[in-house]
């Protein structure tokens, strides 16, 4: 069997999750303007909430997923209201926001560790035989992952580009001050993007939970790769961030063709550092003008 189609398929599976994380992150960055590391906390909570509902409480899968997304969304909004909104008033708010989001992330991770313990958990879906798709072996769950992500993105696109609220949201992200004078409630928009972004992270968490083992430590790599994907694509640009997610997934999985698989996580950051060096505005981004004027 040729290994290339399999590596590409694996890349798409990983890329789906990164793209979901990156899209949520990018959406929030548009209004929050800082790297919200606590995005990894909502992802983690989404995964563990789905696990708790379906496996520990024995609820049906669909209900478990709905609850998990709601919990992730609620957590994201709560963090925004309790931590980020008060911090907006601080003098050095950029640094404060970033570090506070790190603190919140570690706090949530610690709570997950205390509640669920350090042992590895599994969703334990019945193992089905893989199917042959375009020369690669794909399990039904993996197929769900590959197909679910584009559906979510389609929904997101329809919302952002086909509704009034979506337009207001994009306007606020584009130029806060002007949007405000046009009657857009920027604060409400910030809450809304936080909710949306957190929901996306929750979905990403659930998809990962279906296929892989759950560990309390899985949040940080996920958020860092989501951030990396968003930077590779072009920060603050949702479609570019999604593409960045798929690119990163492919790069990682093709990269371990050459490198020992233990280096898989490091590949993403080598790419990141290269991008920061050569093209900090990302593949599709334009450089922001720093200081112009008459």
């Amino acid at each position, binding site marked *: 069997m040729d290994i290339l189609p399999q590596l590409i398929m694996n890349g798409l599976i990983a890329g789906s999750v990164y793209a979901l994380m990156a899209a949520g992150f990018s959406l929030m960055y548009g209004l929050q303007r*800082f*790297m919200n590391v606590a995005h990894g906390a909502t992802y983690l909570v989404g995964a563990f909430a789905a696990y708790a509902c379906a496996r520990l409480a024995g609820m049906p899968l669909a209900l478990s997923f709905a609850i998990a997304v709601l919990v992730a969304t609620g957590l994201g909004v709560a963090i925004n209201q309790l*931590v980020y909104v*008060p*911090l907006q008033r*601080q*003098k*050095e708010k*950029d*640094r*404060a926001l*970033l*570090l*506070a989001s*790190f*603190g*919140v*992330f*570690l*706090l949530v*991770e*610690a*709570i997950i*560790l*205390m509640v669920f*313990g*350090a042992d590895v958990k599994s969703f334990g879906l019945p193992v089905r035989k893989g199917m042959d798709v375009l020369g690669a072996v794909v399990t039904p769950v993996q197929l769900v992952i590959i197909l679910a992500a584009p559906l979510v993105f389609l929904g997101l696109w329809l919302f952002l580009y086909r509704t009034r609220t979506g337009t207001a949201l994009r306007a606020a992200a584009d130029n806060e001050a002007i949007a405000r004078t046009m009657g857009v409630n920027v604060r409400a928009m910030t809450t809304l993007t936080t909710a949306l972004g957190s929901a996306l992270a929750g979905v990403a968490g659930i998809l990962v939970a279906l296929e892989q083992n759950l560990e309390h430590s899985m949040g*940080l*790599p996920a958020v*860092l790769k989501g*951030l*990396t994907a968003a*930077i590779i694509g072009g920060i603050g640009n949702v479609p570019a961030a999604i593409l960045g997610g798929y690119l990163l997934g492919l790069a990682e999985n093709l990269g371990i063709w050459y490198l*020992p698989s*233990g*280096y898989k*996580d*490091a590949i*993403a*950051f*080598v790419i*990141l*550092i290269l991008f*920061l*060096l050569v093209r*900090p505005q990302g593949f599709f981004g334009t450089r922001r003008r720093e*200081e112009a004027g008459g």
Partner: protein
Amino acid sequence: MIEQYLLHLFIIACVYAILAMSLNLAVGFTGLLNLGHVAFYAIGAYTSALLAVGLGVPFWGGMLAGGCMAALFGYLLSFPTVRLKGDYLVLGTLGFTIIVEAVLKNWASLTRGPLGIAGIPKPRLLGLSLSPLPAYALLALAAALLTYWLLSLVVASPFGRTLKAIRDDEVAAGALGKDTFRAKAKALALSAFLAGVAGALYAHYITFIDPSSFSITETILIFSMVLVGGTASLLGSVAGAALLVLLPEPLRFLPIPSDIVGGMRQAIYALLLVLVILKRPQGLLGEDTLRDAWARARRRRKGA
């Protein structure tokens, strides 16, 4: 028994004090949000441990080599990162930590991977072993004091003033003749050197190291010490290190499983970090707090 335990805490606190003070040089005085500090710590520890175990290099040589190796990496890391601002710098340095961690875990022929390096010898000085705890505690104290002395000299010098100017306004510092990239690279290299020394000090004390001692959580722990103590305050970093080393210690005596203890430690650090940022952003002993109090006291004395 109790003295042994207290001396152990003292040594660990000294190691973290060095780490926190050196990180503060980058974060508090230069304004570089470096989340890669633990990688320098790891590089110092591994360099010194490998030299000692593999080649029989004595502690002093290993410590120096560990510091220099870390400084070299600090200098190299500065190339992609000193041009970056805020968020990007954070992500770049964080990425560096993850790469170093991956190398430590995977380059097994050099680092012995997840198995770690055991049997790191304790140092000797003038033919005397420094393995008894009181002797090692003196060594750690001396290292912490030297770090404090060196860094307070540097931050009070014209070079230190340049760093503070870069922190406050990099464009203006450049327009006033400061080569900002070079100054930042030098600050990062010195900060890394001291972290490397702390790594050697730790490795030869514990005598066993593995990649798990140098995780990202550790980076945040050191960062919390700096923030809790107060940025741009060396004494604050020492206080922050002592506080955060001691704070979770009572957990050790509670009858709870180790998973939970680990979680609770992390929760304490994280909660403290968030609360300090929210309620007291300048930290417990921030530069402003200390200097203003000193100035007020002097004015009062003069006025009287």
